[in-house]
Protein backbone atom coordinates (compact mmCIF):
# COMPACT_ATOMS: atom_id res chain seq x y z
CA UNK A 1 0.00 0.00 0.00
CA UNK A 2 2.96 2.35 0.60
CA UNK A 3 3.86 1.96 -3.10
CA UNK A 4 0.55 3.53 -4.28
CA UNK A 5 0.87 6.52 -1.97
CA UNK A 6 4.44 7.41 -2.89
CA UNK A 7 3.58 10.60 -4.79
CA UNK A 8 1.51 12.09 -2.00
CA UNK A 9 4.13 11.80 0.68
CA UNK A 10 6.10 14.99 1.12
CA UNK A 11 8.79 13.61 3.41
CA UNK A 12 9.62 10.04 2.21
CA UNK A 13 12.14 9.10 4.88
CA UNK A 14 10.04 10.03 7.92
CA UNK A 15 7.07 7.67 7.36
CA UNK A 16 9.45 4.81 6.46
CA UNK A 17 11.28 5.34 9.71
CA UNK A 18 7.96 5.31 11.55
CA UNK A 19 7.00 1.99 9.92
CA UNK A 20 10.38 0.51 10.83
CA UNK A 21 10.00 1.70 14.40
CA UNK A 22 6.54 0.21 14.56
CA UNK A 23 7.84 -3.12 13.24
CA UNK A 24 10.51 -3.15 15.91
CA UNK A 25 7.88 -2.56 18.58
CA UNK A 26 5.77 -5.41 17.20
CA UNK A 27 8.78 -7.73 17.05
CA UNK A 28 9.73 -6.83 20.60
CA UNK A 29 6.18 -7.45 21.77
CA UNK A 30 6.10 -10.78 19.94
CA UNK A 31 9.39 -11.73 21.58
CA UNK A 32 8.03 -10.84 24.98
CA UNK A 33 4.86 -12.89 24.45
CA UNK A 34 6.92 -15.64 22.76
CA UNK A 35 4.11 -16.09 20.22
CA UNK A 36 5.70 -15.75 16.82
CA UNK A 37 8.83 -17.72 17.70
CA UNK A 38 6.77 -20.67 18.77
CA UNK A 39 6.66 -23.48 16.25
CA UNK A 40 3.51 -25.16 15.06
CA UNK A 41 2.17 -27.10 18.04
CA UNK A 42 -0.95 -28.69 19.45
CA UNK A 43 -2.43 -26.58 22.23
CA UNK A 44 -4.89 -27.49 24.92
CA UNK A 45 -8.47 -26.28 24.57
CA UNK A 46 -11.05 -28.00 26.74
CA UNK A 47 -14.71 -27.40 25.89
CA UNK A 48 -16.52 -27.82 29.19
CA UNK A 49 -20.26 -28.49 28.90
CA UNK A 50 -20.38 -28.23 32.68
CA UNK A 51 -18.92 -24.69 32.64
CA UNK A 52 -21.38 -23.74 29.91
CA UNK A 53 -24.17 -24.77 32.28
CA UNK A 54 -25.53 -27.37 29.86
CA UNK A 55 -25.80 -30.31 32.21
CA UNK A 56 -29.58 -30.06 32.22
CA UNK A 57 -29.63 -31.35 28.64
CA UNK A 58 -26.22 -32.88 27.90
CA UNK A 59 -26.05 -36.26 29.64
CA UNK A 60 -22.47 -37.11 28.60
CA UNK A 61 -19.66 -36.19 28.34
CA UNK A 62 -19.00 -33.36 30.82
CA UNK A 63 -16.79 -31.82 28.18
CA UNK A 64 -14.09 -32.75 25.70
CA UNK A 65 -10.51 -31.83 24.86
CA UNK A 66 -10.85 -30.23 21.43
CA UNK A 67 -7.26 -28.90 21.14
CA UNK A 68 -6.18 -26.42 18.45
CA UNK A 69 -3.10 -25.87 16.30
CA UNK A 70 -1.08 -22.69 16.62
CA UNK A 71 2.44 -21.49 15.92
CA UNK A 72 4.71 -20.35 13.16
CA UNK A 73 5.64 -22.45 10.15
CA UNK A 74 8.96 -20.76 9.35
CA UNK A 75 12.18 -21.85 7.65
CA UNK A 76 13.68 -24.38 8.33
CA UNK A 77 10.63 -26.62 8.73
CA UNK A 78 12.47 -29.79 9.73
CA UNK A 79 12.04 -29.10 13.40
CA UNK A 80 8.27 -28.75 13.10
CA UNK A 81 6.00 -31.71 13.31
CA UNK A 82 4.45 -33.26 10.20
CA UNK A 83 5.45 -30.66 7.60
CA UNK A 84 4.37 -31.76 4.15
CA UNK A 85 6.78 -31.64 1.20
CA UNK A 86 4.66 -28.92 -0.29
CA UNK A 87 4.90 -26.92 2.94
CA UNK A 88 8.70 -27.08 2.71
CA UNK A 89 8.60 -25.85 -0.91
CA UNK A 90 6.15 -23.11 0.04
CA UNK A 91 8.41 -22.01 2.90
CA UNK A 92 11.34 -21.69 0.49
CA UNK A 93 9.24 -19.69 -1.97
CA UNK A 94 8.04 -17.48 0.87
CA UNK A 95 11.65 -17.00 1.90
CA UNK A 96 12.49 -15.75 -1.61
CA UNK A 97 9.37 -13.66 -2.03
CA UNK A 98 7.87 -12.92 1.40
CA UNK A 99 5.52 -10.15 0.22
CA UNK A 100 3.50 -12.25 -2.21
CA UNK A 101 3.79 -15.85 -0.99
CA UNK A 102 2.48 -16.62 2.49
CA UNK A 103 4.08 -19.05 4.90
CA UNK A 104 2.48 -22.47 5.24
CA UNK A 105 -0.33 -22.76 7.76
CA UNK A 106 -0.19 -24.54 11.06
CA UNK A 107 -3.26 -26.79 10.91
CA UNK A 108 -4.57 -30.17 12.12
CA UNK A 109 -3.14 -33.21 10.34
CA UNK A 110 -5.20 -35.79 12.23
CA UNK A 111 -8.68 -35.32 13.62
CA UNK A 112 -10.79 -37.59 15.76
CA UNK A 113 -14.45 -37.84 16.64
CA UNK A 114 -16.45 -37.66 19.84
CA UNK A 115 -19.97 -38.77 20.78
CA UNK A 116 -22.44 -36.60 22.62
CA UNK A 117 -25.54 -37.83 24.46
CA UNK A 118 -28.27 -35.28 25.04
CA UNK A 119 -31.98 -34.63 25.53
CA UNK A 120 -33.98 -32.78 22.87
CA UNK A 121 -36.92 -30.46 23.55
CA UNK A 122 -39.30 -33.45 23.68
CA UNK A 123 -37.15 -35.31 26.25
CA UNK A 124 -36.15 -37.86 23.64
CA UNK A 125 -32.49 -38.84 23.95
CA UNK A 126 -30.03 -38.41 21.07
CA UNK A 127 -26.64 -40.05 20.76
CA UNK A 128 -24.70 -38.37 17.99
CA UNK A 129 -21.28 -39.20 16.62
CA UNK A 130 -19.38 -36.06 15.61
CA UNK A 131 -16.44 -36.66 13.35
CA UNK A 132 -13.36 -34.40 13.25
CA UNK A 133 -13.98 -32.71 16.60
CA UNK A 134 -10.68 -33.44 18.34
CA UNK A 135 -7.23 -32.49 17.04
CA UNK A 136 -4.89 -35.47 17.30
CA UNK A 137 -1.87 -33.83 15.70
CA UNK A 138 -0.83 -30.57 14.02
CA UNK A 139 1.49 -29.84 11.15
CA UNK A 140 2.57 -27.30 8.55
CA UNK A 141 0.57 -27.32 5.30
Amino acid at each position, binding site marked *: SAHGHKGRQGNRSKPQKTVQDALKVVEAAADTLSLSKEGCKK*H*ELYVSFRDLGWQDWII*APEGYAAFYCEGECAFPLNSYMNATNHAIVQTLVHFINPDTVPKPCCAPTQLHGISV*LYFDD*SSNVILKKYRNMVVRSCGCH
Partner: protein
Amino acid sequence: NFSVDNEVHSSFIQRRLRSQERREMQREILSILGLPHRPRPHVNTKHTAAPMFMLDLYNTISTDAQPPGYSYYKPALPTQGSPMMTPQESRFLDDADTVMSFVNLVDQEKDLLFQQHRREFRFDLSRIPEGEAVTAAEFRIYKNVVQERYENETFSVSVYQVLEKPPNSEVELLLLDQREVWAAEDGWLLFDLTATSNLWLVNPEQNLGLHLVLEDSHGQRRNPHLAGLVTGNGAQEKQPFMVAFFKVNEVRLRSVR
Protein backbone atom coordinates in the same frame (compact mmCIF):
# COMPACT_ATOMS: atom_id res chain seq x y z
CA ASN B 1 -11.67 -22.88 30.45
CA PHE B 2 -8.10 -23.30 29.32
CA SER B 3 -5.45 -25.41 30.98
CA VAL B 4 -1.99 -26.79 30.37
CA ASP B 5 -0.81 -30.38 30.58
CA ASN B 6 2.57 -32.03 30.10
CA GLU B 7 2.30 -32.75 26.39
CA VAL B 8 0.86 -29.56 25.01
CA HIS B 9 1.42 -25.88 25.44
CA SER B 10 -1.10 -23.18 26.17
CA SER B 11 -0.53 -19.59 25.09
CA PHE B 12 -3.89 -18.32 26.28
CA ILE B 13 -4.33 -16.10 29.27
CA GLN B 14 -7.35 -17.26 31.19
CA ARG B 15 -10.04 -14.69 31.77
CA ARG B 16 -13.71 -14.65 32.58
CA LEU B 17 -15.94 -14.17 29.53
CA ARG B 18 -18.37 -11.29 29.44
CA SER B 19 -22.02 -12.39 29.23
CA GLN B 20 -22.30 -11.34 25.56
CA GLU B 21 -19.11 -13.28 24.73
CA ARG B 22 -20.41 -16.23 26.69
CA ARG B 23 -23.67 -16.22 24.71
CA GLU B 24 -21.73 -16.01 21.42
CA MET B 25 -19.45 -18.86 22.51
CA GLN B 26 -22.50 -20.96 23.39
CA ARG B 27 -24.07 -20.17 20.00
CA GLU B 28 -20.86 -21.22 18.22
CA ILE B 29 -20.64 -24.53 20.06
CA LEU B 30 -24.36 -25.22 19.47
CA SER B 31 -23.77 -24.55 15.77
CA ILE B 32 -20.85 -27.00 15.73
CA LEU B 33 -23.15 -29.55 17.38
CA GLY B 34 -25.70 -28.90 14.61
CA LEU B 35 -28.36 -27.51 16.95
CA PRO B 36 -30.40 -24.40 16.16
CA HIS B 37 -30.90 -23.60 19.83
CA ARG B 38 -30.23 -25.00 23.26
CA PRO B 39 -32.71 -27.83 23.94
CA ARG B 40 -35.06 -27.33 26.88
CA PRO B 41 -36.27 -30.80 27.86
CA HIS B 42 -39.39 -30.67 30.06
CA VAL B 43 -38.43 -33.94 31.75
CA ASN B 44 -34.73 -34.60 32.07
CA THR B 45 -34.62 -37.48 34.48
CA LYS B 46 -31.60 -39.55 33.52
CA HIS B 47 -32.67 -42.61 35.47
CA THR B 48 -35.53 -43.75 33.26
CA ALA B 49 -35.06 -46.69 30.89
CA ALA B 50 -34.36 -44.80 27.65
CA PRO B 51 -31.55 -42.52 28.91
CA MET B 52 -29.95 -45.47 30.72
CA PHE B 53 -30.03 -47.59 27.57
CA MET B 54 -28.61 -44.70 25.55
CA LEU B 55 -25.88 -44.20 28.13
CA ASP B 56 -24.96 -47.87 27.68
CA LEU B 57 -24.58 -47.23 23.94
CA TYR B 58 -22.57 -44.07 24.61
CA ASN B 59 -20.21 -45.90 26.96
CA THR B 60 -19.73 -48.67 24.40
CA ILE B 61 -18.73 -46.15 21.71
CA SER B 62 -16.58 -44.06 24.02
CA THR B 63 -14.72 -47.06 25.44
CA ASP B 64 -13.95 -48.21 21.90
CA ALA B 65 -12.77 -44.76 20.77
CA GLN B 66 -10.99 -43.74 23.96
CA PRO B 67 -7.24 -43.27 23.53
CA PRO B 68 -5.14 -44.68 26.37
CA GLY B 69 -4.64 -42.30 29.28
CA TYR B 70 -7.66 -40.13 28.47
CA SER B 71 -10.19 -39.41 31.16
CA TYR B 72 -12.58 -37.09 29.36
CA TYR B 73 -15.14 -39.77 28.55
CA LYS B 74 -16.09 -40.56 32.11
CA PRO B 75 -19.67 -41.85 32.28
CA ALA B 76 -21.86 -39.31 34.02
CA LEU B 77 -24.20 -41.96 35.43
CA PRO B 78 -24.04 -45.52 36.72
CA THR B 79 -25.23 -48.03 34.14
CA GLN B 80 -26.20 -50.81 36.53
CA GLY B 81 -29.66 -52.16 35.81
CA SER B 82 -29.88 -50.45 32.44
CA PRO B 83 -31.46 -52.21 29.45
CA MET B 84 -28.95 -54.64 27.99
CA MET B 85 -27.65 -54.18 24.47
CA THR B 86 -27.91 -57.18 22.13
CA PRO B 87 -25.13 -58.20 19.66
CA GLN B 88 -27.43 -57.08 16.84
CA GLU B 89 -27.78 -53.62 18.42
CA SER B 90 -24.02 -53.51 18.74
CA ARG B 91 -23.79 -53.93 14.93
CA PHE B 92 -26.45 -51.25 14.38
CA LEU B 93 -24.46 -48.97 16.65
CA ASP B 94 -21.23 -49.46 14.70
CA ASP B 95 -22.98 -48.42 11.48
CA ALA B 96 -25.01 -45.57 12.94
CA ASP B 97 -24.20 -41.86 12.87
CA THR B 98 -27.03 -41.08 15.25
CA VAL B 99 -29.13 -43.11 17.68
CA MET B 100 -32.32 -41.72 19.13
CA SER B 101 -34.72 -42.93 21.79
CA PHE B 102 -38.34 -41.80 21.81
CA VAL B 103 -40.62 -41.44 24.82
CA ASN B 104 -44.14 -42.85 24.75
CA LEU B 105 -46.64 -40.00 24.35
CA VAL B 106 -49.72 -41.97 25.49
CA ASP B 107 -50.77 -41.31 29.05
CA GLN B 108 -50.79 -44.88 30.41
CA GLU B 109 -52.97 -43.92 33.39
CA LYS B 110 -55.77 -42.74 31.09
CA ASP B 111 -55.18 -45.63 28.71
CA LEU B 112 -55.62 -48.06 31.59
CA LEU B 113 -59.13 -46.77 32.31
CA PHE B 114 -60.36 -47.46 28.79
CA GLN B 115 -58.43 -50.52 27.70
CA GLN B 116 -57.98 -53.53 29.94
CA HIS B 117 -56.54 -55.98 27.41
CA ARG B 118 -54.30 -53.87 25.26
CA ARG B 119 -51.93 -50.96 25.61
CA GLU B 120 -51.39 -48.10 23.21
CA PHE B 121 -48.04 -46.45 22.44
CA ARG B 122 -47.21 -43.41 20.32
CA PHE B 123 -43.84 -41.97 19.40
CA ASP B 124 -43.17 -38.62 17.76
CA LEU B 125 -40.74 -39.23 14.90
CA SER B 126 -41.09 -35.74 13.44
CA ARG B 127 -37.92 -34.43 15.13
CA ILE B 128 -35.40 -36.81 13.68
CA PRO B 129 -32.08 -35.36 12.48
CA GLU B 130 -32.14 -33.88 8.97
CA GLY B 131 -30.62 -35.88 6.13
CA GLU B 132 -30.51 -39.14 8.09
CA ALA B 133 -32.20 -42.44 7.23
CA VAL B 134 -33.40 -45.13 9.62
CA THR B 135 -31.27 -48.29 9.43
CA ALA B 136 -32.98 -50.08 12.33
CA ALA B 137 -35.69 -49.38 14.88
CA GLU B 138 -37.18 -51.34 17.72
CA PHE B 139 -39.77 -51.13 20.44
CA ARG B 140 -38.53 -52.28 23.86
CA ILE B 141 -40.76 -53.35 26.73
CA TYR B 142 -39.71 -54.89 30.04
CA LYS B 143 -41.17 -58.14 31.37
CA ASN B 144 -40.97 -58.93 35.08
CA VAL B 145 -41.12 -62.46 36.55
CA VAL B 146 -44.66 -63.52 37.45
CA GLN B 147 -44.55 -65.54 40.63
CA GLU B 148 -48.26 -66.04 41.20
CA ARG B 149 -50.56 -68.68 39.75
CA TYR B 150 -49.42 -67.96 36.19
CA GLU B 151 -45.85 -69.06 36.84
CA ASN B 152 -45.87 -72.05 34.47
CA GLU B 153 -48.01 -70.39 31.82
CA THR B 154 -46.89 -69.09 28.47
CA PHE B 155 -48.17 -65.88 26.95
CA SER B 156 -48.18 -64.42 23.48
CA VAL B 157 -47.19 -60.76 23.21
CA SER B 158 -48.17 -59.12 19.91
CA VAL B 159 -47.34 -55.64 18.67
CA TYR B 160 -49.63 -54.12 16.04
CA GLN B 161 -49.34 -51.00 13.92
CA VAL B 162 -52.51 -48.91 13.94
CA LEU B 163 -53.54 -48.46 10.31
CA GLU B 164 -56.77 -46.59 10.76
CA LYS B 165 -58.89 -45.21 13.57
CA PRO B 166 -62.37 -44.85 12.09
CA PRO B 167 -64.82 -43.06 14.40
CA ASN B 168 -67.39 -45.35 16.03
CA SER B 169 -65.75 -48.58 14.89
CA GLU B 170 -62.83 -50.87 15.66
CA VAL B 171 -59.32 -49.75 14.80
CA GLU B 172 -57.64 -51.43 11.87
CA LEU B 173 -54.42 -53.16 12.91
CA LEU B 174 -51.40 -54.74 11.22
CA LEU B 175 -49.45 -57.39 13.11
CA LEU B 176 -45.77 -56.38 13.20
CA ASP B 177 -44.14 -58.86 15.54
CA GLN B 178 -45.03 -61.51 18.09
CA ARG B 179 -43.21 -63.16 21.04
CA GLU B 180 -43.99 -66.25 23.10
CA VAL B 181 -42.90 -65.72 26.70
CA TRP B 182 -42.88 -67.79 29.88
CA ALA B 183 -44.41 -66.27 32.98
CA ALA B 184 -41.09 -66.89 34.77
CA GLU B 185 -39.08 -64.96 32.13
CA ASP B 186 -37.49 -61.66 33.06
CA GLY B 187 -35.91 -59.02 30.82
CA TRP B 188 -36.42 -56.74 27.83
CA LEU B 189 -38.61 -57.84 24.91
CA LEU B 190 -37.62 -56.37 21.54
CA PHE B 191 -39.97 -55.83 18.60
CA ASP B 192 -38.68 -54.80 15.18
CA LEU B 193 -40.07 -51.45 13.96
CA THR B 194 -37.64 -50.73 11.11
CA ALA B 195 -40.15 -50.89 8.24
CA THR B 196 -42.86 -49.14 10.27
CA SER B 197 -40.65 -46.25 11.31
CA ASN B 198 -39.50 -45.74 7.70
CA LEU B 199 -43.15 -45.61 6.68
CA TRP B 200 -43.92 -43.11 9.45
CA LEU B 201 -41.04 -40.91 8.33
CA VAL B 202 -42.26 -40.79 4.75
CA ASN B 203 -45.95 -40.46 5.72
CA PRO B 204 -46.15 -38.85 9.19
CA GLU B 205 -49.95 -38.80 8.97
CA GLN B 206 -49.90 -42.60 9.08
CA ASN B 207 -48.18 -42.57 12.46
CA LEU B 208 -51.19 -43.59 14.53
CA GLY B 209 -49.19 -45.54 17.06
CA LEU B 210 -48.84 -49.13 18.20
CA HIS B 211 -51.06 -51.54 20.12
CA LEU B 212 -49.69 -54.22 22.39
CA VAL B 213 -51.93 -57.23 22.99
CA LEU B 214 -51.37 -60.08 25.45
CA GLU B 215 -52.98 -63.50 24.99
CA ASP B 216 -52.80 -66.50 27.30
CA SER B 217 -52.17 -70.09 26.12
CA HIS B 218 -55.91 -70.46 25.38
CA GLY B 219 -55.86 -67.51 23.02
CA GLN B 220 -57.77 -65.32 25.44
CA ARG B 221 -56.83 -61.65 25.68
CA ARG B 222 -55.50 -60.72 29.10
CA ASN B 223 -54.28 -57.63 30.90
CA PRO B 224 -50.55 -57.17 30.01
CA HIS B 225 -49.79 -56.74 33.73
CA LEU B 226 -50.69 -60.39 34.33
CA ALA B 227 -47.64 -61.44 32.31
CA GLY B 228 -45.43 -58.97 34.16
CA LEU B 229 -45.21 -56.47 31.30
CA VAL B 230 -44.29 -52.98 32.50
CA THR B 231 -46.43 -50.51 30.57
CA GLY B 232 -46.62 -47.38 32.67
CA ASN B 233 -47.01 -47.87 36.41
CA GLY B 234 -43.81 -49.80 37.02
CA ALA B 235 -40.27 -48.82 37.86
CA GLN B 236 -38.78 -45.84 35.98
CA GLU B 237 -35.83 -47.87 34.69
CA LYS B 238 -38.24 -50.41 33.13
CA GLN B 239 -40.49 -48.07 31.16
CA PRO B 240 -41.12 -49.00 27.51
CA PHE B 241 -39.53 -46.90 24.78
CA MET B 242 -38.59 -46.90 21.13
CA VAL B 243 -35.05 -46.66 19.77
CA ALA B 244 -33.96 -45.89 16.18
CA PHE B 245 -30.54 -46.03 14.52
CA PHE B 246 -29.79 -43.50 11.77
CA LYS B 247 -27.17 -43.15 9.09
CA VAL B 248 -26.34 -39.94 7.22
CA ASN B 249 -27.48 -40.23 3.61
CA GLU B 250 -26.34 -36.86 2.36
CA VAL B 251 -23.36 -34.56 2.79
CA ARG B 252 -24.07 -32.02 5.52
CA LEU B 253 -22.90 -28.52 4.75
CA ARG B 254 -22.71 -26.05 7.57
CA SER B 255 -24.16 -22.71 6.56
CA VAL B 256 -22.04 -19.58 6.61
CA ARG B 257 -22.76 -17.32 9.57
